[in-house]
């Protein structure tokens, strides 16, 4: 039987997953600037992967900062 008493807040993990996914998406967007995709994608000129990636990164950072040291007693 494990004896852990403090559990990490779920919002902390939400922050991490959003940050990581946002970073990969942004990287893909930057990569596409130099090596454009040849797939038939509409509105490709909007570079949605860049600005949507940035929005997801910001959301992730906000969740991480707000929940960095928060734990739940169990």
């Amino acid at each position, binding site marked *: *039987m*494990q004896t*852990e008493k403090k*559990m*990490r807040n*779920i919002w902390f*993990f*939400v922050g*991490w*997953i*959003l940050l*990581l*996914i946002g970073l*990969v*998406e*942004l*990287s*893909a*967007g930057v*990569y*596409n600037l130099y090596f454009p*995709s040849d*797939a038939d*994608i*509409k*509105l*490709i000129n*909007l*570079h*949605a*992967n860049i600005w*949507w*990636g940035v929005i*997801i990164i910001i*959301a992730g950072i906000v969740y991480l900062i707000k929940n960095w040291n928060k734990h*739940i007693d*169990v």
Partner: protein
Amino acid sequence: MAPIHLSIFDWLIMLIYFGFVVWMGFYLKKFTRTDEDFFLAGRRNSMWVCGIAFMSANMGSMEVIGYAGQSVKYGLYAAHFYLIGAVPAMLFLGVFMMPFYYHSKIKSIPGYLKARFNESTRVFNAGMFVVNMILVSGIALYLQALIFHTFLGWNWDLSIWLSAVFVALYVTLSGLLSAMFTEILQFFLIWAGILILPILGLTDIGGPAAFAAHLTEGFRTLWSTSGSPDSNPMYITWGGLVLGLGFAIAFGYWTTDFLIIQRAFSAKDLRSARMTPIIGSYFKLLLGAVVVGTGMIALVLLKEPSSGFKLLVENGKTNYDSVLPLLIRRYFNTGLMGVGVTSMVAMFMAGMAGNMSSFNAVWTYDIYHPVINKNATPQKLLHVGRAATIAGIILSIAAAYIARSMPSVIDYLQAISSMFLAPSVAIIILGMFWKFITPKGGLWGMLIGTLAAVLLFVAQEVKIISVSFVIPDFSGPGSQTFMAANFWRAVWAWLISSGTAVIVSFFTKNKSDDELRGYVRSLVDKNKVEEPKVALYKTPEFWGAVTFIIFIIINIILW
């Protein structure tokens, strides 16, 4: 159709998601010590955790991918599933019903039926529930495999087994706790994948003005064409919408379906439990805007030949479920595609984990414990819950393969669910608000109501009765009244269940007031359900009223 090519960035996003989900199952296992931890996530969650998990359990693939397709079929009428088909029932649950559920310390909805009526009512309801869960989960697995096979070129068997194994892993490790925590991660990923779709879609079609330019009134209004079934794409009147969808089906799903209510039971206190569906109602409205909006964008694209947008047609039949994946394919570039595909995987897994975590609780508490092993210890129940998860997933996989060999089964899913839910809610609400209803009244009401719904459905399918027998204001081609028939069948099931329960109660013995105390509104100890005083703006009533006002305004604007 050529499969979508995924880049290394897209695969990396999926890898991050799967890695997180599995790791979380192992992390949370350390905190899952008792059966209550496993089945009710320890009853220690905040209103936001419960509210988001509550909505996420509702954001399965059929609700998102399925209703985007329904929006192409029915236009703005599909929004009724998010408005009258959700909001009033969610608010009723939070404001009026949750205090009974929460304070009675029941562990499941069938558990309430045992306390209010008797063991037979509980076992009947639990039996129907577990069968329904396996069917829903199996069909969702099949749909997932269908979409991944068609759009990504993935192998059928791999698509079915991959998600099933991952869900089995994390739900078996820590039950509802990991189901809820991963549902929250999935909730954010689903939004990350779908929230951007209507933004890009609206840009593509030239803004909301395109709806008025391309769609007839029946497809772009909520009520103005509901006076006659001939005038709207759903072939329904406002009476069928209000009574069938808004009352029988919505209350059946939102107030008695343990799959979603289980999340509220895990709340740390009554106020959090009551706020759970109310928080959910805000996200439900937003989800409706995104899903129906996306479907209607597809509808405009379909009306505009120069867009080049076409739905998938298989064996001469249009596949409406292809709308969302096709739009993702149309607009999502590298990286964004990974988020879109992960979002679809998350929908399937959230739905399946929800099905399995409620399946294992009802099987263990309402069938295994009272019928098979009355003396089971809490530790034994924990083991049975874990084993039930594995068994439930194996049965779901079997159901998925059956659905693959008989795809028409899927058409009947909604009909099956409505047959089961309407009698349940009729008996639960009668029992909760009227102490006159006896245990035998409850049992027979539920049995006869379910039987009547099944008979009506079968008789209509084999053409013993005509569609007009089920739909009182019938009009239009019989082949297109499937949804209207579902709504009206639920109304009849509700009425027959309620009528039977009342008649039987006249002739059978009731429980004493002491036995009913806490389970019927007139016999509730006011001190027990009273919540600590909080400021008005923190009360469920306040936030429920705000949602209701928003709901009314939306209905007026889109009338």
